[in-house]
């Protein structure tokens, strides 16, 4: 008998340690695990490193976690966005570190961590400031930059449907970074709108196999970051 379900989002993130590296799924508002992020705010871990494509919007979810002063460093591709005020203010005040990574390199570094590949070469960023200090090398007469894997201690994931073994499917473009973050994290924590028995998801359509998932929490009516932003909500 295998059952990865956990009773609550609070239980799911309870053991998050100070200094942890947390991969947060989502691209903008789509796929953002709002309830898990709010549980992490309540939980209180400090000095976190956050991996996310962006740096949060408004004053909810990831932006609210950043606003609470608990994030020491952001690793992302695009920390600017129209509704993003929290991160820019802290960054300009020198209160948060930033590692900007090209979006595809960010994705590939996560996938490499999940796949046991410590380093790889990519043409992306060759000759640009983002390649400064990185090793470059020619293959077939063309220059490439070496990039290394990017592991996370924890991944916070929003799925549409999960089974109790942790097999996942997602909703449309809310999939984005979730499958590779599930692979890259030591402990993958998933909030799912629906939880079903093993065997209920067709094996052909599983997107994230359960082997990449550690904890599953039922969040039947997840808040969508997009709705919260429109309503100008904040947390806590």
């Amino acid at each position, binding site marked *: 008998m295998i059952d990865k379900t956990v009773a609550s989002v609070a239980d799911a993130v309870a053991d998050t340690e100070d200094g942890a590296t947390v991969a947060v799924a989502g691209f903008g508002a789509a796929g953002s695990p709002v309830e898990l992020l709010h549980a992490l705010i309540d939980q209180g871990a400090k000095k976190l490193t956050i991996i996310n494509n962006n740096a949060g919007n408004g004053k909810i979810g990831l932006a609210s976690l950043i606003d609470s002063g608990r994030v020491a460093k952001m690793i992302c591709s695009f920390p600017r966005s129209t509704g993003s005020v929290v991160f820019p203010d802290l960054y300009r005040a020198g209160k948060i570190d930033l590692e900007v990574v*090209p979006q595809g390199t960010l994705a590939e570094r996560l996938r490499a961590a999940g796949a046991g590949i410590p380093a790889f070469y990519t043409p992306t*960023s060759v000759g640009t400031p983002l390649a400064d200090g990185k090793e470059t090398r020619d293959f077939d007469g063309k220059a490439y930059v070496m990039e290394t894997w990017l592991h996370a201690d924890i991944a916070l994931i929003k799925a549409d449907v999960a089974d109790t073994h942790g097999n996942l499917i997602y909703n449309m473009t809310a999939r984005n970074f979730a499958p590779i973050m599930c692979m890259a994290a030591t402990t993958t924590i998933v909030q799912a709108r629906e939880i079903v028995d093993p065997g209920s998801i067709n094996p052909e359509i599983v997107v994230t196999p359960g082997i990449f998932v550690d904890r599953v929490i039922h969040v039947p009516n997840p808040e969508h970051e997009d709705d919260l932003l429109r309503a100008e909500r904040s947390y806590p």
Partner: protein
Amino acid sequence: MSWTPDEMAARAALDIPNGAYVNLGIGMPERVANFVPEGRTFIYHSENGLLGMGPEPVETERDPDLINAGKKPVSLNPGASFFHHADSFAMIRGGHIDYCVLGAMQVAKNGDLANWSTGAKDAIPAVGGAMDLVAGAKTIYVITRHTTKDGTPKLVDTCTYPLTGLGVVKRIYTDLAVVAVSEFGFKLVETAPGIGADEVQTKTAAPLT
């Protein structure tokens, strides 16, 4: 009379063949989708994990989980598919995207592109997928006004802003002209109606042949 942004987009669309897999940058490049020539179909890639992207839907049919790389609501065309970010950028980096149309701050005569940062000290660096797209897509087109608002040329000898990619741009569609990047530098392909080659050269900071 210079071209409008719609006319620039329509002109770029003319140079994309039927069946092409196309990635359109945020802003002016997105207009290309409104001017697909008769008899052609383009398949749009959005780097957040969608192929077969359709136009912005009416308000009532929007789903916040169906967005494009600009985080705007989109729809699905028949034959669409979803995939994760590593697969999406495998499409880009692996040379499977036929055409990518992007905006630009500066394009140099050797095809170098700067479109992600002015290098200003207080700017928050933010690159997104721009560097992956220019390094990976088979053909890079740029749509941009020929000069900045204060008249400074955007087609230059050497980029002064931080680069996005080296020698990547093939063609530039501006309000004044279509300019190709060749091994000998900028080449004037076509001018907007009533715009002379002299005027284009005056507003370009590198020789046009």
